[in-house]
């Protein structure tokens, strides 16, 4: 490919990686500062999507723009993209199931609480039966 396209790919990739760094820092601060399990889980998901999926896509673009790697750049780019898509699919499911399990088993208390629809639904179901 011509050098201009390569540079565009590399710079785009580096921008994505920088965004990933920002999200990782935000997620780390959230993990430390947020008050309860469910909100901290939200911070962890920020780390997984913003801090892993986005930079992985950036790595794929950087690899695609690195001519000196020869044909191997497509291996790196492909692997990074596939990993990114898997993280994008699996991280939200993982946090969803974790949150549900924690809520069902009452391992984590929702405190401080603004709203808890799941508990309200359960109370409604219990009332109907």
């Amino acid at each position, binding site marked *: 490919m011509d050098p201009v396209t390569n540079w565009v790919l590399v710079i785009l990739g580096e921008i994505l990686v920088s965004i990933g760094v920002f999200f990782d820092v935000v997620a780390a601060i959230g993990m430390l500062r947020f008050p309860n399990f469910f909100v901290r889980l939200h911070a962890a998901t920020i780390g997984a999507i913003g801090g892993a999926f986005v930079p992985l896509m950036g790595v794929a673009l950087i690899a695609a723009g690195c001519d000196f790697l020869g044909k191997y750049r497509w291996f790196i780019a492909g692997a990074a993209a596939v990993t990114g898509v898997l993280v994008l699919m699996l991280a939200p*499911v993982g946090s*969803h199931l974790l949150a549900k399990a924690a809520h069902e088993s009452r391992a984590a208390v929702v405190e401080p609480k603004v709203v808890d629809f799941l508990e309200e639904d359960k109370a409604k179901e219990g009332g109907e039966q």
Partner: protein
Amino acid sequence: MISLTLYYVLMAICGLGSVVAVFLAIVERDMLKAVLFSAIQSTLYAFLYYLLMAPDIVLTYIPVSVGLYPAVILFLIKKTERFEDVEMKKGVLWATGLLSLVFVIATAAVIAGKGIGPVPPPDVRFLAGWYLATTFNPRVHLISAMAPEGVTSIVWDYRGLDTVFETAVLFLAIIASVALMRGVEHKGVYDELKHGMTLIGKTITKIVVPLIIGVGISIALHGHLTPGGGFQGGSALAVAPLLVLVVFSKYFFDKVKFTKTKALAIRSSGLLGVGLTAFAVLIAAIFLHKPAYILQNQPRVGAPLGFPWKGIDGVLLGGSLLSFNACEAMAVCAGFVILFLLLSIPERYVRSVVVGGEEHEH
């Protein structure tokens, strides 16, 4: 020879230092300091392993025994108490210290007297060079394994017998667990809404399971070309049924009629495949009236038969390695599935079957 002397001196310092650290760790009554001494001993051991040319052990030893282990102990100390209230007798203390010192000096004397050969053995690098030179080398076909992945070649060709026995050991372990759980049949009717996790989890599992199976098969069948092999591929494959077990519940297996017996059949046919591959060249040689070895892969001196190593268009087949890997992957995957199925039976149910029978007799 200066470097070798330096080796010995460094090893002696590390060995004696670790003895002192262990002694202090035992004597110390403040548990926090004792953990610190224990960590110092671990660090010295790690360095000793490095000097003994075992970098792989160093890499696992440092995080486990310098990081994880003290962390666990510290956590326990936090839960209990920091100071030991039992005091050791002075005589016992000195005797322990003296004995361990004598032990170290005696061991050092044995090693210095070439009791276990030169340390570090200079042959190690020669052996590594030999493996690299003969793993895939068509010019010396009679001593080559003809597969470019060195580790798989060593596992299934150079020391194939060892791996066959390892497979047998794992098989026996699983047979033992099946025997322990004999008569325990736990079945239920799968209910899409009642059992397993949420719809979100189930949907994603449906997408991911084929991907895992694909990766597992590729690790197993590519084992003679890239890192991987039968055991690794089988372990990766086993993640798919484990995921189904966790997300869809055990009763899903009853619904698709995948029983322990079927898994056992797959496992046994995999093992049979490993056995047949081990004897394949020998069986062929008997019919062709030629000499051959057990576990023979490529032609050797005086034994001219062997597995094909090159397919159409020069694709590398890896000789017996490909067949070994495929069969081993089947056996390992099915073996793990059996274990998962057995472990997923509720403990209360198992106890009611096992203890229930005994109570009946009384």
